[in-house]
């Protein structure tokens, strides 16, 4: 309590410095005059009285200084002085200041830009519930294994595996594709959509922030066409209109009713259909639609490998156990259905599947910009060293005038600090246009 009070007292004193200084001078004057009066009463003459009074008082300058130290926040005041001094010095040599700030800004700008991407893609890629237990399930076909290790999923196989498996909690099947979408007669544009079994969001552990999730009857044949928008899709087509639920959008030529909007954190990743299958640019998913299986989906067993599947492992089940179990189920089905091909399974954790194509390149880029930043720092340190040497005379003068060692060091350090701060701010400011550029680039790739 006392501590807070004292700090408060001192902070207040900082802002009333002039008034308090005047007060103190007045108080000292009163003191000396009272002393002179008393001395005169004791029989001294005017001059003797004054001299004696001043001698008894002690060094006015020294006392005023220790009074100020007691009154304010001397460290803070010193720091403020250092900062003022550093900015003055930098303004006097704008060439150096500009070089230093630009060097730092570019280094920091590059590093933060790449870090933003690394952070978004590698460090916190998926905002799903317990993303560690989500897996991408693909089928494997013995006959094509020499060519590629996995195939997309067949609808019938998915249904059966989902029903029989004891290691999977649930699984959702879907297809990612570009669809022509327009808002009541506008010029249509091609946007990323996910057509999925109605349980997709439940498998991911996500919920719409507006409206409702899909229900199983949405996928029934002949059911009214409905869609859920991603946050981005909501912004793109409806400008974030709060009354979007119930409005219609033409998706693939059909009037489709919007039933829900997903939160901004939910971004559906691009899942490659399988290895060695070309996948399009990483377009954002704007629209989710329920998947209504057609006749072919329900009948084909040896063709129609057209889908992707995301499954959630049961609590306690490992990827290895699931792989073994599903492989067994696939083998058994191959035999019981007398299939001419031999089915297997290929599971990968969702997180590594999503980043598998890019993580190496990204880490390399991150290391590269880290190296650039390091070089920038070394260059700057050299420049500062040269400056310190050339300012030797000034330092000597300051020392001769009574600056303490720590004050001299702090003066130099403060200059570096000011440079670092300004450079850092400019660098972080640079990050925004760079990231904005990447964003636009991605959009162009998707639309074009």
């Amino acid at each position, binding site marked *: 309590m006392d501590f807070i009070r004292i700090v408060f007292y001192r902070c207040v004193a900082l802002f009333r410095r002039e008034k308090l200084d005047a007060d103190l001078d007045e108080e000292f004057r009163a*003191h000396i005059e*009272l002393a002179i009066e008393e001395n005169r009463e004791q029989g001294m003459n005017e001059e003797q009285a004054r001299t004696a009074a001043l001698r008894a008082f*002690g060094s006015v300058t020294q*006392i005023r200084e220790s009074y100020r130290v*007691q009154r304010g926040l001397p460290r803070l005041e010193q720091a403020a002085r250092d900062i003022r001094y550093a900015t003055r010095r930098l303004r006097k040599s704008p060439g150096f200041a500009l070089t230093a700030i630009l060097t730092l800004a570019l280094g920091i700008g590059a590093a933060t830009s790449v870090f933003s991407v690394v952070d978004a893609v590698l460090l916190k890629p998926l905002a799903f519930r317990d993303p560690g237990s989500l897996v991408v399930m693909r089928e494997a076909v013995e006959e094509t294994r020499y060519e590629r290790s996995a195939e997309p999923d067949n609808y019938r196989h998915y249904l059966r595996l989902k029903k029989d498996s004891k290691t999977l909690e649930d699984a959702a099947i879907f297809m990612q594709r570009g669809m022509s979408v327009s808002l009541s007669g506008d010029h249509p544009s091609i946007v990323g959509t996910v057509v999925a079994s109605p349980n997709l969001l439940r498998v991911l552990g996500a919920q719409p922030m507006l409206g409702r999730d899909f229900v199983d009857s949405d996928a029934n044949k002949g059911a009214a066409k409905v869609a859920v928008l991603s946050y981005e899709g909501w912004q793109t087509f409806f400008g974030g209109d709060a009354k979007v639920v119930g409005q219609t959008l033409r998706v693939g030529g059909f009037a489709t009713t919007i039933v829900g909007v997903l939160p901004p954190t939910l971004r559906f990743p691009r899942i490659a259909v399988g290895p060695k299958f070309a996948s399009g640019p990483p377009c954002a998913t704007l629209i989710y639609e329920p998947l209504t299986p057609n006749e072919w989906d329900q009948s084909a067993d040896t063709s129609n490998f057209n889908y992707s599947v995301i499954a959630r492992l049961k609590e306690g089940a490992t990827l290895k156990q699931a792989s073994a179990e599903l492989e067994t189920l696939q083998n058994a089905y191959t035999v019981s259905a007398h299939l001419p091909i031999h089915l297997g399974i290929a599971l990968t954790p969702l997180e590594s599947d999503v980043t598998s194509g890019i993580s190496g390149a990204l880490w390399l880029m991150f290391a590269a910009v880290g190296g650039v930043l390091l070089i920038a720092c070394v260059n700057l340190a050299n420049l500062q060293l040269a400056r310190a040497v050339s300012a030797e005379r000034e330092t000597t003068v300051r020392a001769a005038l009574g600056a303490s060692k720590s004050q001299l060091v702090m003066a130099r350090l403060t200059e570096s600090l000011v440079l670092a701060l300004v450079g850092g701010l400019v660098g972080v400011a640079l990050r925004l246009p760079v990231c904005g550029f990447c964003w636009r680039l991605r959009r162009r790739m998707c639309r074009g």
Partner: protein
Amino acid sequence: MPESRSDVLQGTLDLMVLKTLESMGPLHGYGIARRIEQVSGNTVSLNQGTIYPALLRLAQRGWVKAEWGTSETGRRAKFYSLTGKGWKQIEQETENWERVAATMARFLAPSN
């Protein structure tokens, strides 16, 4: 300068100031400094000015408060007086000092 004058120990000055205010009532800086010199019988070497940082310290802790007033000779001066907290502090500091003094006295007493 008598040889027996000694510098004021940090912390002792605070108690001297508080005790002075206790016995004299509100007083200006000069009065406090003079009173300390008189009571100590000039055995304490005190630059009178050092009383001011000490007074500020006591004010910051809330033990004394200061107000501008007029001296007996009609001079405008800042008068210091004890606060309620200051009275309590005197009790506590006095106790501390007595304990220290008693302890030291035991060490300084001629051994039997």
